[in-house]
């Protein structure tokens, strides 16, 4: 958002005829920040739903503290919710913030670094007292000491105004204070020329048994809105035109919910019962919690005693004929690797979801990272090939969860689906597909007795899937090496070599059954930026920004890491320079070098944070200059 309007903080205009300018902007990023008890996540999600429903493309990133209930007012108790919306297709929740709503000094201090020069600060004046300033480790009040020069600061008595508008309701002080986030929400609706009706409807539904809360929150919401309208402290209002999104029904979806939806949909498409064995772990727990609600879809979510039991119960369920999966994050993944090897050997379908977080060990549980690619590729004993897919957006989470299930069933193999903390919690508008638009998943259970051998092969090199309970097909499988075709235990040297090669070939063969790698941007250029996982969004935004500036850059997002699409080598060889940004120390870069003998330029950052488009943009610029 480019806004050069200068406004003196808190100075009321006395011109009764004053009317703010309505300015059209293309792309806005707003952050609501406050104490973890201030309801910032709710405020953000209400704003999001309203914005999304008016046809913008959006990107969202909630950011909450690792501590469950950090002390009020403290720096580590700050909770934030960032929403970016625009009139065009966007891939990330943005780079820097145009508007920062700071409900207390700590929120201001933590988030100021992300605010654009000239950006807007809306500060809750009532919280800038000595106590809260001390908690935020401010020696002087930043609203008074001139340190915010260069920003457009609006000091608004949000708490007092909230209490004022509720004074005749005789609510307990605590309840009344809790409404103050709706004041901020109402103000932002006014500032961005959006109606508050969507939130009013939501309030009526949410508090249908507590009419006094509907009344209180609605009043405060409107008070915030009309504060903007009446006090005339803002000289400008903003408007973002709707984006040209594809027609259809949309909803907001974050990555974790999308995986739960994808797995449930895959099971329905396959006509199978879904069984998911999981153990709670940040940031993946939301997947199992979401699935636990889908009982009326016949979903069996088994909360296991540990990570190993999570995957082992899933392997048992797969043996019994379910679509089975397990969901976890890095440390849990480490515990599951032996069992993934069993599924490789027993050739049973299984979807293993790893929502990556900062590592090693316990690492940074609430922060994002992409450093489990090697673990997914090579984390097991023996030659143990497993298909690996990686999502680049919440929408991807849905479709690639279905794709992982399709591959698992078709090729009788465990499949690893990599997500990460950034995608897990970020949300975007998800175009709801028609069932007929979704891939079909064909399941054939072996029932015929003649010619049945547990380790015979279909044209996909998959062995037959037999449900226990099928008459006459009683057989044994296991983790010991199997004789080709018969499936009997075999220690034969030649057979082992053959089976190792066969398992490798089976996974490699999947490359003929997946979409080719697609190059976007200016295809005919010197530089290809190759993204994977959550780096994908920042790569797309960065390259598109360069293209807007008239530069020639191409990019591609790799979603199939093993096997890679069969045109990958050809594409990589057609660019003199390849840049691979990763939130690790270069795991994909190393894979590409060793797989194709192609060198790439690494760009690595391992700070628990996703790449900002501007960081990649700067790196591209640096490369293009040379």
């Amino acid at each position: 958002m480019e806004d050069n309007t200068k406004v003196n903080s808190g100075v009321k205009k006395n011109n009764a005829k004053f009317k703010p300018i309505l300015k059209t902007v293309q792309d806005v990023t707003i952050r609501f920040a406050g104490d973890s008890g201030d309801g910032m996540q709710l405020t953000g999600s209400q704003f999001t739903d309203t914005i999304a429903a008016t046809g913008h493309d959006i990107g969202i990133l909630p950011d909450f503290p690792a501590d469950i209930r950090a002390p009020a007012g403290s720096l580590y108790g700050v909770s934030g919710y960032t929403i970016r919306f625009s009139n065009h297709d966007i891939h990330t929740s943005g780079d820097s913030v145009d508007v920062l709503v700071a409900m207390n000094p700590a929120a201001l201090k933590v988030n100021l670094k992300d605010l654009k020069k000239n950006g807007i600060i809306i500060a809750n004046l009532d919280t800038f007292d000595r106590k809260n300033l001390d908690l935020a480790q401010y020696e002087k009040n930043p609203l008074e000491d001139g340190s915010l020069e260069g920003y457009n600061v609006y000091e608004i008595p949000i708490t007092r105004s909230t209490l004022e508008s509720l004074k005749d309701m005789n609510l307990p002080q605590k309840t009344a204070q809790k409404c103050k986030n709706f004041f901020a929400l109402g103000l932002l609706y006014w500032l961005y020329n959006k109606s508050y009706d969507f939130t009013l409807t939501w309030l009526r539904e949410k508090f249908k048994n507590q009419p006094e809360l509907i009344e209180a929150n609605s009043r405060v919401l409107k008070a915030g809105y009309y504060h903007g309208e009446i006090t005339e402290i803002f000289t400008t209002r903003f408007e973002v035109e709707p984006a040209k999104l594809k027609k259809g029904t949309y909803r907001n979806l974050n990555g974790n919910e999308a995986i739960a939806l994808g797995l449930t949909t895959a099971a329905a498409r396959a006509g199978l019962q879904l069984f998911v064995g999981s153990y709670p772990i940040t940031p993946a727990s939301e997947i199992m919690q979401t699935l636990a609600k889908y009982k009326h879809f016949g979903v069996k979510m088994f909360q296991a005693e540990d990570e190993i039991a999570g995957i082992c119960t899933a392997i048992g369920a797969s043996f019994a004929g379910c679509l089975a999966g397990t969901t976890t994050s890095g440390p849990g993944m480490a515990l599951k690797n032996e069992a993934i090897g069993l599924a490789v050997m027993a050739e049973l379908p299984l979807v293993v979801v790893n929502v990556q977080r900062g590592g090693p060990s316990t690492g940074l549980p609430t922060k994002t990272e992409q450093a489990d690619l090697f673990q997914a590729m090579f984390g097991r004993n023996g030659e143990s090939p497993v298909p690996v897919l990686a999502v680049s957006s919440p929408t991807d989470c849905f479709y690639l969860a279905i794709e992982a299930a399709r591959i698992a069933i078709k090729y009788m193999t465990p499949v690893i689906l990599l997500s990460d903390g950034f995608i897990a919690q970020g949300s975007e508008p998800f175009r709801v597909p028609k069932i007929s638009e979704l891939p079909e998943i064909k399941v054939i259970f072996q029932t015929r007795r003649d010619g049945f051998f547990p380790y015979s092969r279909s044209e996909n090199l998959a062995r037959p899937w037999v449900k226990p309970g099928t008459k006459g097909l009683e057989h044994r499988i296991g983790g010991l090496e199997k004789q080709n075709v018969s499936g009997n235990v075999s220690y034969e040297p030649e057979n082992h070599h053959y089976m190792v090669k066969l398992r490798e070939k089976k996974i490699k063969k999947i490359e003929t059954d997946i979409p080719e790698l697609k190059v976007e941007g200016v295809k005919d250029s010197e530089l290809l930026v190759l993204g994977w996982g959550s780096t994908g969004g920042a790569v797309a935004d960065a390259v598109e920004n360069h293209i807007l500036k008239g530069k020639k850059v191409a990019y591609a997002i790799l979603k199939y890491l093993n096997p890679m699409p069969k045109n990958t080598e050809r594409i990589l060889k057609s660019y003199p320079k390849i840049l691979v940004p990763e939130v690790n120390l270069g795991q994909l870069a190393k894979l590409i070098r060793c797989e194709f003998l192609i060198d790439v330029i690494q760009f690595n950052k391992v700070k628990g944070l996703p790449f900002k488009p501007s960081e990649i943009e700067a790196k591209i610029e640096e490369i293009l200059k040379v």
Partner: protein
Amino acid sequence: MTENTNTPKTVPQYTAKDFASGRDVRWCPGCGDYSVLAQIQRTFPQILAEYGQVKENIVFISGIGCSSRLPYYMDTYGFHTIHGRATAIASGVKVANPELSVWVATGDGDCLSIGGNHFIHLLRRNIDVNILLFNNRIYGLTKGQASPTSEHGKVTKSSPFGSIEYPVNPVSLALGMEGSFIARSMDKDPKHLQQMILRCYQHYGTTLLEILQNCVIFNDGAYNLYTNKETRDEHVIYIENEKPLVFGKNKEKGIKLDGWKPVLIDLNDGKHSISDCLVHDETSKDLAFILSSFIDNPLLPLPLGVFLARRRNRYEVEMENQIEMAKEKYGAGKIEELLKGSSSWEIK
């Protein structure tokens, strides 16, 4: 009701041979596992005939160890998995398809050491899985290291100066985890072992059958006291529901309770009679705990039989019930509606 009451149906008649897979059995000659395999193969035709069960519904899951080879020798569905995880994998099989009759073949190392966590949580959930715990008090497949049931002071390859650990008492552990069916038998008493296998099948919920099993190579004679003709009558007591605790060659010994303490009594001493004896009650957890502690007292005999059999809700049944209730309440789920979610909008 703690018993299975399926009415007999006309089903194919099976013999022990129908349960032999035909693979060469590769345990050491003289291994107690042969007897366990034979008793399973002998009991299953009876189970199938009496309860209308079919062979294709039987599934054997195992982990790693000598006993875990068992599924390969049974002509049923079988899955030889990884060390310690049989009880977890079996849980998944049973919850996925409650129609199946799921059995776990496991050993003292597999079940109580590396697999201890899955074992206790299976008991807690009371999923209808039958655990056959082959307890030979030694690691056999890895050739002779101390196991979690090896006695304190035991000299093994991994404890050349004697084990400095105390053994797990599997019955007490299972009682502590609220197990709903706990029994003990031994390889050298085929008839009793068959009865116990049958009781396991009949029970609704997780069953633990500890089978004292002789490892002829690395721990030969571990149970001689209980199996030798000369000593067994004086050192083994068969516990049966609602029957007094008496034993000895001529049933001349009994057990009575002195407070909470079980004491040995001589029924021929003129002071005691059978009416002084403790009467077994399979439904009493308190009594089961007392019986499980006999093994700590060298003066008391080793109980064989059913320690506890009581009714508890089964996990897999409750899960199915919740699914049915959810379908009744919300209607069978429609993917179209799920995808749309509770809040959506149209772009035209």
